[in-house]
């Protein structure tokens, strides 16, 4: 046995790896696949061991075991059951005390907060208006993002009004901001190819854009965050739209932190920082301390790109989100991105991820309401992100008032992610959130692209079928149509904020 437990820092393992000795043929595929040292081969004893304390539950070994000898089980709380503390609070105190550091976690919050999507039902047509069969009749999902004019002037049969720049999406689903650094080259390559094939856009995230990925010009949204990593003229020029990242749903109000060990030569080059130093994104943009300052950056970017590209502003959903979004709209943003509380992250302090922010459903409904009241909703576009898990979440988001959605976590799950929440360790066994070349090559861009295209195309089909059932032949007709939704198991206040009726009403 090559380990020794430290009793003082012991916390019970989260998982139990069960190996069926009758099935195991000692092929060591599991040993090769595990990047967390939870599985290893002991030559002296000719035995494969599992170290439960190191297992993260990613199921890579189980997936690769040719004889299905491995089962991963979630361990029950071994301590005396205490409903008011639960296992996580006990373990949380122990870890902080033992290691003297604040735990950093990744992906969206896993705590049992209410998911409002699951408390809304969608309407369908019966008798009084006919439903539509999308397999045989045209169904429009095309969406334009950007500032809209109040009215059109036509002169001599030609359009006289000058329109604002728009993004044209074949499907109202875009790939959310996930940067090179959080994800590796192969994954960004796959996401870029999928965006091109699907006629949608992917967001570079705040870590710059690798030179090789400039070829996706026409399908790129670039991000400008407080660290301004990799932001230079060519980066702005290659983009179809520029997104100013003010906040992120998983960590509202705090900055980013890519640890130095992940800053490889290639990432340093792309981010334009020295190799091996921490890539710190300050909590605020230090040139934005007010709405007026935000306007200044929006127009600086418009000036730098000669008013040819829409400017997105991404804000995390927080308590006064409606007033903030109204300010952002008035500051000149063409598109507002709302990032909900359950949005993912490559690394965030646990307490922030699990306690700060607002669910996207409530934020989206209240922002849409406020912008309508102020006569701004028709002028700008609204993108919902942070917790979109399936095609029906997309439908519900659009009915609550979004023009389009961003998907991040779903993108990763499509190419192998099992949500083990270890992105911050850089050891992703599925080769996604890692820069280790040995692990990164587990992602084949050809296969990953196909899976992303499949996912979004299937969601598009499901959306079309649902629209057809509702008797609607264009996604535009669903936008902000909250009568298409009914709530259940919700308080009156919750339904008031969501702006929907109770099921049965």
């Amino acid at each position, binding site marked *: 046995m090559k380990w020794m437990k430290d009793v003082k820092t012991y916390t019970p393992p989260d998982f139990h790896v069960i190996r069926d000795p009758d099935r195991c043929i000692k092929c060591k595929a599991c040993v090769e696949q595990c990047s967390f040292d939870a599985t290893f081969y002991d030559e002296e004893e000719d035995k494969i061991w599992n170290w439960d304390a190191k297992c993260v539950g990613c199921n890579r070994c189980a997936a690769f075991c040719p004889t299905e000898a491995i089962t991963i089980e979630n361990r029950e709380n071994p301590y005396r059951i205490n409903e008011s503390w639960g296992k996580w609070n006990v373990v949380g105190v122990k*870890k902080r005390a033992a290691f003297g550091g604040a735990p950093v976690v990744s992906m969206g919050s896993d705590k049992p907060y209410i998911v409002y999507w699951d408390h809304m039902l969608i309407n369908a047509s019966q008798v009084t208006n006919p439903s539509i069969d999308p397999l045989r009749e045209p169904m429009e999902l095309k969406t334009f993002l950007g500032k809209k004019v109040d009215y059109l002037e036509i002169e001599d049969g030609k359009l006289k009004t000058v329109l604002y720049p728009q993004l044209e999406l074949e499907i109202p689903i875009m790939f959310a901001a996930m940067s090179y650094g959080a994800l590796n080259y192969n994954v960004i390559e796959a996401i870029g190819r999928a965006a091109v094939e699907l006629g949608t856009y992917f967001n570079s995230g705040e870590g710059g854009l690798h030179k090789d990925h400039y070829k996706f010009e026409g399908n790129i949204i670039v991000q400008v965050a407080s660290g*301004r990593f990799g*932001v*230079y003229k060519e980066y702005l020029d290659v983009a179809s739209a520029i997104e100013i990242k003010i906040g992120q749903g998983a960590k509202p109000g705090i900055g980013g932190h890519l640890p130095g060990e992940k800053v490889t030569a290639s990432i340093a080059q792309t981010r334009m920082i020295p190799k091996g*130093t921490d890539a710190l994104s300050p909590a605020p943009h*230090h040139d934005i301390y007010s709405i007026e300052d935000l306007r200044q950056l929006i*127009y600086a970017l418009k000036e*730098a790109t000669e008013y040819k590209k829409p400017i997105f502003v991404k804000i995390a959903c927080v308590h006064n989100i409606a007033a903030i979004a109204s300010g952002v709209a008035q500051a000149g943003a063409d598109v507002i991105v709302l990032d909900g509380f359950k949005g993912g992250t490559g690394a965030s302090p646990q307490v922030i991820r699990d306690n700060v922010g607002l669910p996207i459903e409530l934020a989206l409904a209240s922002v849409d309401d406020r912008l309508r009241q102020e006569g701004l909703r028709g002028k700008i576009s609204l993108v919902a992100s942070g917790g979109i898990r399936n095609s029906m979440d997309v439908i519900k988001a659009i009915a609550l008032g979004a023009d389009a959605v961003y998907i991040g976590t779903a993108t990763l799950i499509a190419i192998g992610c099992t949500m083990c929440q270890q992105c911050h360790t850089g050891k992703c066994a599925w080769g996604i959130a890692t820069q280790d070349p040995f692990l990164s090559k587990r992602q084949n861009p050809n296969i990953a692209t196909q899976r992303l295209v499949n996912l979004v195309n299937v969601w598009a089909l499901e959306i079309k079928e649902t629209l057809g059932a509702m008797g609607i032949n264009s996604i535009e007709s669903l936008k902000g149509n909250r009568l298409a939704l009914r709530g259940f198991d919700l308080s009156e206040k919750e339904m008031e904020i969501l702006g929907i009726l109770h099921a049965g009403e």
Partner: protein
Amino acid sequence: MKRIDASNLKYNVLNDIIRRVIEEGENKIIIDGVCGQYYIGCGIAKPVEIVINGVPGNDLGAFMEGPTIIVNEDAQDGIGNTMSSGEIIIHGNAGDVLGYSMRGGSIFVKGNVGYRACIHMKAYKEDVSPTVVIGGCAGAFMGEYMAGGTLILLGLNRDKKRLTGNYLGTGMHGGAIFVRHGVDESLCSSEVLISKPDDKDMQKILTNVKKFCDLFGFDCDKIIKDEFVKITPKSKRPYGNLYIPGP
């Protein structure tokens, strides 16, 4: 050479004219009557020379790559915001957030600068490294999050004014700040080290101060013989030990 009269022009109109003139192949532009117009030189990626008579507005030379901008009076906030290369010369004082996130090129300011100068200034290659020389004094949070480059603060003509503000070099994790006449250690963040510049550093200071003196007519020999201190980060990873992998 092309002269543009900016009086009564809105910033977008003025900048549009500037862009058009540069597109037509002009490589030197003099703009008269500038009064607070934003974004002059913003996003320009050609090695042109722009001379500004008057006080330009915020975000002068933001995102620029290559131009030389000379301001004959004071300038406002956000000068050289995220600039990649080129040169900005201010014959007066400058406002807050000078050179935010700049990663190449140089800025020379004859007078004082406001708060948060050179925040998150960074360098990523030996030959691409930003340089900022400030003739007068600076406000608080100078060099915050600084990740690379060279910042020289000369403190000329300061009378009783404080040379720097509080929180100098907070979160600094790269680059070097050189301050003439030393620095009040109580104003510095705990993440920085104060040392004596070595010969190589002094050579760097001399080159830049000489250029500064040539631009603004100061006596280089007199300035350079005074004591300089060097401020560098203690670590490339100032916050590395605050966190542990969770959950």
